[in-house]
């Protein structure tokens, strides 16, 4: 019997050791191509499109989707942290470029891209924000995958209603505001008054919904549109200098706080999905979100009541005291990068897929299925412009796009920004104090950096 016990003991250890590695090995050495992305509509669209690639080449493509609420960044950063090879391609946020490059996680594509990708067809801003790091260096680490920006959706049926137009005119007169028609707001101030009208005068309605959660980059993405429109900025990205503290940054934060008075009681802590849900509920007049979240709004299956009653517009402008008019929108979207930790054979396979994905025909299909292409020809094609009601806004949006820091320390910079803006918006911290805190900590974080290119 002791012999049998010994056999059971060693057998158990052996089985434990063998099977603990099984799942991973299948992922590493199998013939499938693993792509990591967020769990949202574009990822499902990519999976559907990739079936065509599988039919053409026999290579199976699996788009692994992880929630925006943290699981996506966690999965990607765990891959980076462990220098792992679970994924062949990582569709990472534009802000991750710096850490992907400095950490050695993204394969450099500087020589490969001009030879295999139609570079001249890509919108230059898309190459700048999604592919190049440091910006302006002409060193490439990703191909543009999902171009995106923050946009606005509004209830066209309400805006075009004569009853509301008359009531809105009366509302403005009552408050002594210079008259302007109820329609797409041209300035942030107009947007604020329209929101206030729906909040105060239309029972059961709220004026606006914007991403305001502490999660990931949500509240920062909403605020930064105002920051840039009011004339402020985060810093000089090329020189790694923080220049956030300014009267404009404070004014923009104060305006943001006031604007959110026209949101629902929970409107100061909304995620991307919550904003969509509020718009679907039909109880919000205007909502701001990334365009990639809009397909659910115009789909009769997911939005049966309002899918055909919506209008869209790009971020409005702000005119400062000197009469200077500024407009900007937050850059969203992601580039497609090859995981540098996979074998050369897998790298070649990943590049082959990226080459296929970048071709004109596939980009056209990608755009028509709901993805947002960075291919200029596709963006201007009549098929694309009429495929979805907001597609015609992209060309303008590309000209308005700006991004948060994409240095390797972006995570620490973002964490501070999220924390302080949330404190100002959710806990009434004085905007000046919040702005000062961000400046101080951004300076410290950038000063303490230890990496070199």
């Amino acid at each position: 019997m002791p012999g049998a016990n010994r056999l059971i003991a060693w057998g158990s250890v052996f089985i434990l050791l063998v099977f603990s590695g099984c799942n991973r090995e299948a992922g590493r050495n199998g013939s499938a191509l693993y792509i990591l992305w967020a769990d949202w509509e574009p990822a499902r669209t990519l999976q559907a499109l990739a079936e065509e690639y599988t039919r053409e080449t026999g290579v199976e493509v699996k788009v692994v989707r992880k929630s925006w609420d943290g699981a996506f960044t966690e999965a990607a950063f765990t891959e980076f942290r462990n220098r792992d090879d679970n994924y062949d391609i990582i569709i990472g946020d534009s802000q991750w470029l710096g850490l992907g490059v400095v950490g050695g996680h993204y394969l450099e594509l500087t020589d490969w891209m001009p030879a295999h990708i139609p570079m001249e067809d890509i919108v230059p801003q898309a190459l700048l924000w999604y592919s190049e790091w440091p910006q302006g260096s002409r060193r490439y680490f990703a191909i543009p995958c999902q171009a995106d920006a923050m946009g606005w959706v509004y209830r066209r049926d309400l805006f075009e209603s004569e009853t509301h137009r008359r009531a809105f005119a009366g509302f403005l007169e009552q408050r002594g505001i210079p008259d302007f028609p109820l329609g797409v707001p041209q300035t942030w101030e107009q947007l604020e008054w329209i929101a206030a009208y729906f909040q105060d005068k239309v029972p059961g309605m709220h004026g606006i919904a914007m991403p305001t959660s502490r999660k990931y980059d949500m509240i920062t993405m909403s605020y930064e549109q105002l920051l840039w429109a009011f004339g402020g900025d985060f810093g000089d990205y090329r020189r790694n200098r923080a220049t956030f503290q300014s009267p404009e940054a404070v004014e923009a934060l104060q305006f943001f706080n006031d604007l959110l008075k026209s949101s629902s009681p929970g409107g100061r802590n909304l995620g991307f999905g919550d904003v969509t849900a509020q718009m679907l509920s039909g109880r919000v007049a205007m909502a701001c979100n990334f365009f990639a979240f809009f397909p659910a709004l115009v789909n009769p299956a997911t939005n049966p009541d309002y899918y055909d009653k919506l209008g869209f517009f790009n971020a409005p402008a702000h005119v400062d005291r000197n009469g200077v008019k500024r407009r900007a929108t937050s850059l969203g979207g992601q580039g497609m990068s090859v995981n540098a930790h996979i074998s050369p054979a897998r790298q070649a396979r990943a590049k082959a897929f990226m080459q296929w994905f970048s071709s004109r025909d596939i980009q056209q299909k990608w755009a028509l299925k709901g993805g947002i292409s960075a291919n200029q020809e596709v963006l201007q094609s009549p098929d694309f412009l009429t495929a979805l009601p907001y597609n015609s806004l992209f060309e303008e949006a590309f000209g308005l796009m700006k991004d948060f820091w994409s240095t390797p320390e972006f995570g620490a910079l973002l964490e501070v920004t999220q924390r302080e803006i949330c404190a100002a918006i959710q806990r009434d911290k004085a905007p000046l104090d919040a702005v000062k805190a961000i400046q101080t900590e951004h300076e410290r974080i950038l000063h303490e950096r230890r990496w070199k290119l």
Partner: protein
Amino acid sequence: MGLFLGPALLLLLLMDILPLLCSLALSFTHFNPIIDTDAAFAGLKNYSGLFTGERHEVWRSFLRTGALIVAAVGLETVLGFTLALLMRRRFRGQGWLTTALLIPMMLSPAIMGSFWRYVFNTDYGLWNWIFNVRWSWDGAQPRAFLAVLLAEVWMWTPFMMLISLAALNGIPKVLYESARVDRAGRWFRFRHITLPLAAPLVALGMVFRTVDTFKVFDTAMVLNGNFEEQPTTFVSVLLHAKAFAGSHSLGESSALAYLMLAVSVGMAAATAYALKAVREKRA
């Protein structure tokens, strides 16, 4: 015998001792595993930084955790003991009610946290709907602390009830009968028999709950995320945030982990002392 101990010892060495030593080494370095290939020696900076940081975030997280321990363990004890007093009596359906009361304790904290998140949702949550209020229970709002407290109390009151019930059932009935013979009133019997005799075991339950609440993470994480400087940034949440969010500073988080370890060891010593006290009292 030695052969069977071998795998267990090997696992202990690989899964506990080795990581513990690695994190000790890391606590003396600056290391962001996402962008650094090598750790840079930092001496005692990570440890001194815990106490001298401008925002006193570590102190504040300990204070928050302390406040949660006092409030949660206090409420759980009072409510659990009261429930135990009620459940000690025989009545129809007692078994069913006891089982129902124990359900919260058996749920996973993550599942329970998701459930409470819906209860506390500002726009469509059950709480705001029932009480017809528009309270915000999350984010940087101070009420977020209350949300975690309520969820913890709901989940762990049954544990204190169970411990209290065991303590109450352990009191010899003869003491109550003698007291009745001596015409002792209800309050007198409660004050001089029930409380002192149940106290050692209830105190032990409180020690367990204190140690457990000190580590609270999942409930707070699910209800309000792993962010620094929120009303729900308890020590474990701060540790996780430092290691896996924002700056990904493994050195700083390892130093904080060792500070937590020191406090935990202190608590373990208190538990051992409490156990000894209970044994002596029983003897």
